[in-house]
C-alpha cells in the first residue's frame, strides 16, 4: 500500500533538528555552545512555519496509524510555540548550568514525542509518542544531576510515570482484546456496535487512570508538586505545559474517537474527576509558600478545568479544551519564566522573596500578575473566555460542575492575590533593579500580549480552533 511520507515531514524535520543540535554540540568548542539555544529557537520556528503550511491538510499514513488533520496540526503548533518560549526563557539558566547540547536536544525530542502523540491514530503510535516524551522528560527533570533535589524528583517521576504507563498499557491491551483492533477510529466503530462488557469498563478506567496521571488530575496528582518543585524550573514549565497539553490531545482522541459508544458510562466519572481536581488543586494551593509548588497546584486545578470540556465529548467540548489549553500554555509559561529568571538572580523560590518585585522589575511583576489572573479567569484576560467556552458546554446537564468551577476559580483569586500582594505592596529587602535579559524579555512580553489579546479579542483564535475541532470528526 503506497503512502505519502510527505505527511510526516514536520516530524522528520524535528527529529533532524534534534540530531543536528546533538551533533553540533559534540563537535563545537565549549565557548560556542551558547549559540545552540538560538539554533534550537530558529530551527523550531522553521518547523512551526512548516507546520502552518500543513494547516488544512487532511490525511493519514500507514492505514490510519498516523493521522494528519487540523486537530493534530493545531496541537503541534501549540507544542512548538511552547518549546520556543521555553528555550528562550531558559537560555541563561542553561548557560549557567552547562550541558547545553543534551538539554536542547532532549527538549526537541520531547517536543517530537508530543507531536507524535497529537497525530497518533493507533495505540502503538500513541504509546511510542508518549514514551518518547516521558523518557525525555525524565532526563530533563534530573538534569541538575549533582543536586539531590533534582535527582530525587527524577526518580519519583520515572517510577510513577512508568507505573502509570503500565496501567495505561494494560487498559489498551484489554480494549485491543475486546475489539480486535488498535486503530482508534476503528475501535470506535466496533465499540459503538457491540454491547458493553465489564472488561471494557475496566479498560476505560485504566485508561483514565493512566492519562489522569499524565495530566495530573486528582487523585493521580501526587507526583506533580514534588516533581515540579525538584525539577529545573524551565523543565517544570515545559512539563506543566507540554506534557499536559500532549496528554490532553491524546486523551481527547482516545475518549472522543474510540469510546463515544459508551459515553454514558464514563461521562459522569470524568465530570466528578474534573470537579474533584478543581476543588483539591485550588484548595491545596492556598497554604503553599513556594512559588513552584503554588504553580504546580494551580496547574492541577487548570487540568480540572480542561477536563470539563471532555465531559460532553462533543465538538464544542473539544473546541473548549483546545482553546483553553492554548491560552493555558501562555499563562503558565509566563509565570514559570518569571520564576526561572527570578531564581537565576536570587536563587530563591520562596514567595516571600518576591517582595517588592514590582519595583525591582515592573515587567516581571506584571507578567506574573497577568498570568495568574488569566488562570483565575478574570476578564479581560484569556482565561475568562476559555472558561466561558468550557462551561457553556456543560451548564445544561452538569450545573453543579459549573458552580464548582466558577466559584472555585474565584477562590483561586485568593492565593494568586497573595502573590500579587507580596510583589506590589511589600518593600523589597534588596532593592537593586533586576535587569531582564532580552530572550527572557521576549518570552515575557509575548506571553503577556497573547494572554491580553486573546482575552480582549478572541474571535480569530476561536475560528482556528473551530476548524481544528471540526477536522477531528472527519477521519
Amino acid at each position, binding site marked *: 500500500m503506497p503512502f505519502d511520507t510527505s505527511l510526516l515531514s514536520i516530524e522528520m524535520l524535528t527529529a533532524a533538528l534534534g540530531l543536528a543540535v546533538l551533533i553540533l554540540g559534540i563537535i563545537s568548542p565549549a565557548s560556542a555552545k551558547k549559540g545552540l539555544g538560538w539554533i534550537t529557537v530558529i530551527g523550531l520556528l522553521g518547523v512551526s512555519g512548516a507546520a502552518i503550511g500543513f494547516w488544512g491538510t487532511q490525511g493519514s499514513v500507514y492505514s490510519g496509524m498516523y493521522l494528519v488533520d487540523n486537530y493534530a496540526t493545531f496541537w503541534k503548533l501549540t507544542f512548538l510555540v511552547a518549546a520556543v518560549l521555553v528555550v528562550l526563557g531558559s537560555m541563561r539558566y542553561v548557560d549557567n548550568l552547562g550541558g547545553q547540547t543534551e538539554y536542547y536536544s532532549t527538549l526537541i525530542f520531547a517536543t517530537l514525542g508530543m507531536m507524535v502523540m497529537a497525530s497518533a491514530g493507533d495505540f502503538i503510535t500513541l*504509546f511510542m509518542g508518549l514514551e518518547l516524551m516521558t*523518557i525525555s522528560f*525524565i532526563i530533563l527533570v534530573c538534569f541538575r544531576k549533582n543536586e539531590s533535589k533534582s535527582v530525587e524528583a527524577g526518580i519519583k517521576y520515572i517510577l510513577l510515570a512508568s507505573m502509570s504507563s503500565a496501567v495505561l498499557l*494494560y487498559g489498551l*491491551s484489554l480494549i*485491543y482484546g475486546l475489539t480486535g483492533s488498535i486503530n482508534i477510529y476503528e475501535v470506535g466503530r466496533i465499540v459503538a456496535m457491540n454491547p458493553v462488557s465489564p472488561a471494557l469498563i475496566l479498560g476505560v478506567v485504566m485508561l483514565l487512570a493512566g492519562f489522569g496521571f499524565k495530566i495530573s488530575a486528582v487523585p493521580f496528582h501526587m507526583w506533580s508538586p514534588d516533581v515540579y518543585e525538584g525539577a529545573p524550573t524551565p523543565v517544570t514549565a515545559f512539563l506543566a505545559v507540554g506534557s499536559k497539553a500532549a496528554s490532553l490531545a491524546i486523551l481527547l482522541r482516545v475518549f472522543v474517537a474510540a469510546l463515544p459508544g459508551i459515553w454514558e458510562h464514563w461521562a459522569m466519572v470524568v465530570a466528578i474527576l474534573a470537579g474533584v481536581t478543581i476543588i483539591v488543586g485550588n484548595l491545596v494551593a492556598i497554604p503553599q509558600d513556594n512559588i513552584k509548588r503554588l504553580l504546580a497546584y494551580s496547574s492541577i486545578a487548570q487540568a480540572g478545568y480542561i477536563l470539563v470540556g471532555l465531559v460532553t465529548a462533543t465538538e464544542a467540548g473539544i473546541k473548549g479544551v483546545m482553546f483553553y489549553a492554548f491560552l493555558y500554555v501562555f499563562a503558565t509559561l509566563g509565570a514559570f519564566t518569571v520564576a526561572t529568571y527570578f531564581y537565576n538572580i536570587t536563587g530563591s523560590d520562596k514567595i516571600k522573596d518576591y517582595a517588592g518585585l514590582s519595583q525591582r522589575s515592573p515587567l516581571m511583576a506584571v507578567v506574573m500578575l497577568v498570568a495568574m489572573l488569566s488562570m483565575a479567569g478574570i476578564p479581560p484576560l484569556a482565561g475568562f473566555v476559555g472558561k466561558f467556552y468550557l462551561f457553556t458546554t456543560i451548564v445544561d446537564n452538569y450545573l453543579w460542575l459549573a458552580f464548582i468551577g466558577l466559584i472555585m476559580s474565584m477562590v483561586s483569586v485568593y492565593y494568586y492575590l497573595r502573590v500579587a500582594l507580596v510583589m506590589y505592596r511589600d518593600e523589597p529587602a534588596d532593592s537593586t533593579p533586576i535587569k531582564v535579559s532580552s530572550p527572557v524579555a521576549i518570552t515575557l512580553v509575548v506571553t503577556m500580549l497573547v494572554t491580553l489579546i486573546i482575552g480582549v479579542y478572541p474571535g480569530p483564535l476561536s475560528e482556528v480552533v473551530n476548524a481544528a475541532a471540526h477536522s477531528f470528526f472527519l477521519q
Partner: protein
Amino acid sequence: MLTISLTHYVVLSAILFSIGLFGVLSKKNAISVLICIELMLNAVNINLIAFSKYITPNEFIGQIFAIFVITVAAAEVGVGLAIIIAIYRNKLSVNLDEFDWLKW
C-alpha cells in the same frame, strides 16, 4: 484433558499485573520497584500476545505491539538505573523512604 484457553492467559496476566502493582506500591527499594514495573509491563505483553493469537490470528498486531513495549521498557529501565546510580552517589542509598528532600 486440560486445554489452555484465552482465559488462562488473561488470568495469568491479571495476576502478574496485580503482583507488580502491589510491589510498586509496597517495596522500599528503588530497584525492586523498577522490577515490579517490569512485571506489570510483562503482564501487558502476555495479554497482547494472547489476544493476538486468539482474537486476531491472521494479523500480527499484538506481537508488534509487544515488541514495541519490550523495546521501550528497556529504554525506560536504562534511564531508571542511571538515575538510581546518580542518587546512590548523592545519598549512598537506594531506599525510597530516605528520599525525603521533597514531600513524597
